[in-house]
């Protein structure tokens, strides 16, 4: 199969999901953890938005905050999450339940543990359908079988009555997808759906998601730390660092013209982007913990372009060219030009 060249898909769909200055802080015994600290993005129908960043930068917390799946307390969520204009953060828990699994669905990273081990996969899918579409038990089970067929599980009639442990990892992830899509959601959030899988299986799953999105016109949020996955599946990319969005652009633009020093470093540190057998580009230092008190740009400590200003002031997102925003003083001040050192060789 060929790459559908996602970047060519027009980003003209109506805004489905708007995350607006989302902040999720956790009250912990060692002080508040600012896991997500002001993140905004928009997902449009038929569009895939990639969210990349290193472990712990707040990708999952953002996603869970959208669906309000975090326990409050300890989490405190502020900002707005609008689904076709309705602010989800203001809905009652009851109304929210009607959204989850119905209008917004989510696929989790660990297909091994995200399915209830003591229920048949059929029941787990049927349960959603029964709940949201008010179908009877038998019809719901029928729907479950159909969904398994949609996600290309062989012998769906048999598999529908099997328990998760009887399925391989790849099949379980397909079941998760079937579960997520059973009610035809408008938005699908995929939180690292393939990191736990082998490359060959990962390729199958990504292909599947891509196809289903095309067919159903969903908006997809693809959370990943793998720039390769982003390059292959996404239309737009949000780069997160330490709970904040540091850069957002269309996928082509980002790979052609990464602006934020962090984005550049990330790309440069990937082995395959380097010249073979040469030393990899390292990013010195560590990702700051969300509990650490912050002043200025979170990346400043690891950034070769950092100056005094970076350590004292938080850079705001500014537009750099069409549809490309970045939060960096160095970029603002023109200290970084648009052709980075280690950009992908086209």
């Amino acid at each position, binding site marked *: 199969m060929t790459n559908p060249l996602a970047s060519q898909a027009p980003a003209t769909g109506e805004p489905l999901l708007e995350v607006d200055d989302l902040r999720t802080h956790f009250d912990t015994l060692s002080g508040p953890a600012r896991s997500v600290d002001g993140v905004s993005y928009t997902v449009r129908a038929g569009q895939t938005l990639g969210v990349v960043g290193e472990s712990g930068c707040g990708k999952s917390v953002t996603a*869970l905050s959208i669906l309000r799946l975090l326990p409050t307390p300890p989490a405190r969520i502020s900002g707005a999450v609008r689904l076709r204009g309705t602010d989800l953060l203001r809905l009652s828990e009851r109304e929210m339940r009607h959204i989850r699994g119905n209008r917004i669905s989510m696929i989790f990273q660990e297909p091994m543990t995200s*399915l209830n081990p003591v*229920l048949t996969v059929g029941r787990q899918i049927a349960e959603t359908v029964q709940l949201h579409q008010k179908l009877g038990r038998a019809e719901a089970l029928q729907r479950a079988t159909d969904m398994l067929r949609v996600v290309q599980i062989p012998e769906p009639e048999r598999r529908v009555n099997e328990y998760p442990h009887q399925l391989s990892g790849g099949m379980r992830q397909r079941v998760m997808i079937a579960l997520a899509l059973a009610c035809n959601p408008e938005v699908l959030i995929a939180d690292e759906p393939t990191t736990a899988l082998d490359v060959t299986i990962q390729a199958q799953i990504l292909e599947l998601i891509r196809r289903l999105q095309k067919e159903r016109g969903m908006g997809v949020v693809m959370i990943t730390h793998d720039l390769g996955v982003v390059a292959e599946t996404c239309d737009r990319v949000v780069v997160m660092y330490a709970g904040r969005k540091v850069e957002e652009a269309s996928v082509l633009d980002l790979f052609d013209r990464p602006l934020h020093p962090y984005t550049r470093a990330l790309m440069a540190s990937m082995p395959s982007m380097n010249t073979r057998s040469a030393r990899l580009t390292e990013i010195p230092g560590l990702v700051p913990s969300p509990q650490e008190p912050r002043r200025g740009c979170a990346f400043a400590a690891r950034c070769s372009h950092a100056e005094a200003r970076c350590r004292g002031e938080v850079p705001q997102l500014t537009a750099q060219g069409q549809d490309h925003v970045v939060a960096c003083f160095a970029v603002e001040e023109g200290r970084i030009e648009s052709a980075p050192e280690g950009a992908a060789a086209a």
Partner: protein
Amino acid sequence: MGYVLRRLAATLPVMAVVAVVVFLLIHLSPGDPAALIAGDLATGEDIAKLHAALGLDKPLWQQFMLWLARLASGDLGTSIFTQVPVSQLLAQRLEPTLSIAALTMVLTMLVAVPLGTLAAYRAGTWIDRLVMIFAVLAFSLPVFLVGYLLVYVFAVQLPWFPVQGYSRFADGAGAWLRGLVLPCVNLALVYIALVTRMTRATVLEVLHEDYIRTARAKGLGVLPVLGHALRNAAIPIATTIGVGIALLIGGVVVTETVFAIPGVGRLVIDSVQRHDYPVIQSVLLISAGVYVLINLLIDLSYKLFDPRIQY
């Protein structure tokens, strides 16, 4: 089916160990078992005779085999003190003990599982704290103190329940039940504490599992989500209930003393004071057997809860 047989066979070594322990208890204890069994009144001659009659001159293992053989034929021996076959003594005492145990069990499950689940669901809130305080208190209060407090309040001050004794089921279910309320509540407290704590811990742990997040992401409400959680927590909870049987049987001894209930527990205490070893041995054996059997049943029931269990 093969599995059931296999599991049944696996209880044999356990029961064998129990038998050895029970056997050695008397044969390795300081002093001559014959003298112990003959009692204080016996003369040297009596003891010598008994020595031969009991086969105590034979090697230990032969004695053990003989004893096992008699056990296998259902002969539990004769009570030294009352000269009544032990099986008959036990039969007389079984009803009250079984009634207490069964009712306590039912009470425990009815109270502890919902309570523990509630505490887990509301972890960190005052409900949770209250439940946990109750659990640790119930764990720390001596059964007999609670027993007397219950009697004092609910039988002496408020004449709601009989103070003591046991009314047979055959003499009316109402009186039977009324008489069992206080002993069962008394006995159940510890057990409830145990199961509540375990339920809370397990459910809490399960609630952090990814599949619970999945269930919530599907839009399920509180009760269905807790249902998902409970099904997964069922095995540890069932295990605790099974292990708790030991606590229950031990507690029965105390409770029966407090409430003057003529059950097996009282029989043991009386027998200990009279050095009536055949009775003690039999009760130990039987309670171990009950423990093993119930735990076997619980083990077998795991498959109902968890399809991953392979037989």
